[in-house]
């Protein structure tokens, strides 16, 4: 009996060893708005390929600086289409690997129910002390929020109340903790699948801001990694697309 047990153990160890040899790690820089969806996609990716993701999340503009300074990310999942193109032009990303994986949707959100109306009229009401946006220099969603304020002619009225999050994640955090009554965040942050949207929100019409085309790209550090290439391929697959749409992104 003892011998059989040992054999089983040996077999299991061998199996584990082969599995580990195939399983690779992909280091991914992901725009803060896509952190939630990527966590789900990462689970599907791991069970389909055995590869695991090592995820860093932040503002796209920050990742640009970090990648330009030699950060060892293999894949960038950005919140815009300019940053991947700029990285390719500067030789920091692989030509021809960029593609649009989602269209971002901007939402004016409050943690308090009934605070935000479905026309966004609350913005002109002056009923709030703080309005949060992501840093427009670093985060495409922050840039989009500024465009909305411009389109509504509210820039001057709102500027004294403006609070800037260093990424869309910090913008969300300021609103979620109630420290700011209102904030422009990504729909994907409040439209978590299977959960009702908390508080109140206004889905900003696309006519008020330039389309947020979110692109992913293979970076130079991932050029020779099959796992990194597999992640980009998986991002285009049906299971990944359904996760992306369930978080409220446009096709």
């Amino acid at each position, binding site marked *: 009996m003892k011998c059989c047990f040992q054999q089983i153990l040996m077999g299991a160890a061998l199996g584990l060893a082969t599995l580990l040899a195939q399983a690779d790690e992909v280091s991914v820089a992901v725009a803060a708005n896509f952190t939630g969806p990527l966590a789900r996609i990462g689970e599907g990716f791991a069970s389909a390929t055995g590869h695991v993701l090592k995820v860093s999340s932040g*503002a796209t*503009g*920050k990742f*640009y*600086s970090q990648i*330009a300074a030699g950060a060892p990310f293999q894949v960038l999942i950005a919140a815009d289409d300019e940053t991947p193109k700029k990285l390719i032009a500067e030789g920091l990303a692989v030509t021809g690997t960029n593609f649009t994986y989602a269209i971002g949707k901007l939402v004016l959100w409050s943690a308090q129910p009934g605070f935000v109306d479905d026309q966004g009229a609350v913005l002109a009401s002056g009923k709030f*002390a*703080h309005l*949060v946006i992501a*840093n427009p*220099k*670093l985060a495409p969603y922050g840039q989009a929020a500024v465009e909305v304020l411009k389109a509504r002619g509210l820039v001057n009225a709102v500027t004294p109340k*403006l*609070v*800037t*999050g*260093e990424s869309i994640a910090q913008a969300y*955090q*300021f609103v979620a*903790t*109630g*420290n*700011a009554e209102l904030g422009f965040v990504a729909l994907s942050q409040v439209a978590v699948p299977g959960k009702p949207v908390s508080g109140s929100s206004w889905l900003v019409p696309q006519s008020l801001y330039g389309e947020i085309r979110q692109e992913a790209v293979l970076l130079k550090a991932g050029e020779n990694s099959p796992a990194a290439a597999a992640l980009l391929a998986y991002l285009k697959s049906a299971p990944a697309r359904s996760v992306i749409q369930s978080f409220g992104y446009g096709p």
Partner: protein
Amino acid sequence: MTAADWSAIVLTAELAAVSTLLLLLLGTPIAWWLARTRSRLKPVWASLVAMPLVLPPTVLGFYLLVLMGPLGPVGQLTQSLGVGRLPFTFAGLVVASVLYSMPFVVQPLQQAFEAIGERVLEAAATLRAGAWDRFFTVALPLARPGLLTASVLGFAHTVGEFGVVLMIGGNIPGTTRVLSVAIYDHVEASEFADAHRLAAFMVAFALLVLVTLYVLNRPARDDPGTAR
């Protein structure tokens, strides 16, 4: 230097000055008590004061954001007092800085008070000096080097504060965008020329402060608080 740079510099100086003043007002009695007490709880209180030395600023920033928010106890207190909420305000930064820089003020003061020793104070008492009199005319003058160190360190540490301010400040120009946050902002946006200007200013400032401190404190080191 641009107008935005100056605004950040002035704001930082104001924050550090106000915080240092409050730190001295609060820190002196705390340090005096810690230096004199025979309470068995002394290690606990001393540890509480020293906590910001050990904790990452993110811990303080996170708890302040939650506690000072509309649902937190501090937030509800400030709102009921009519002060409003503290995050994203100058007052909020002052509260955070005072907590964060407390050990840098209390510890040098406590050491200075401890170095005075009982004998001088007892001598003063036999000359009918009351408790307040002993403190203001004997202890405080003898603790002057400690007071100076505490002031300079409290001021400099507040100027150098970053993580807590980033987490509760909201990066508002003229209100919460202090120097360290302005530099971070420039670096992250790849505006290296702007970052260099402010960063170089900070390096010069830090060096100046520390050299001043060491020069002023030199005699005290030769003669560590001996009673004269």
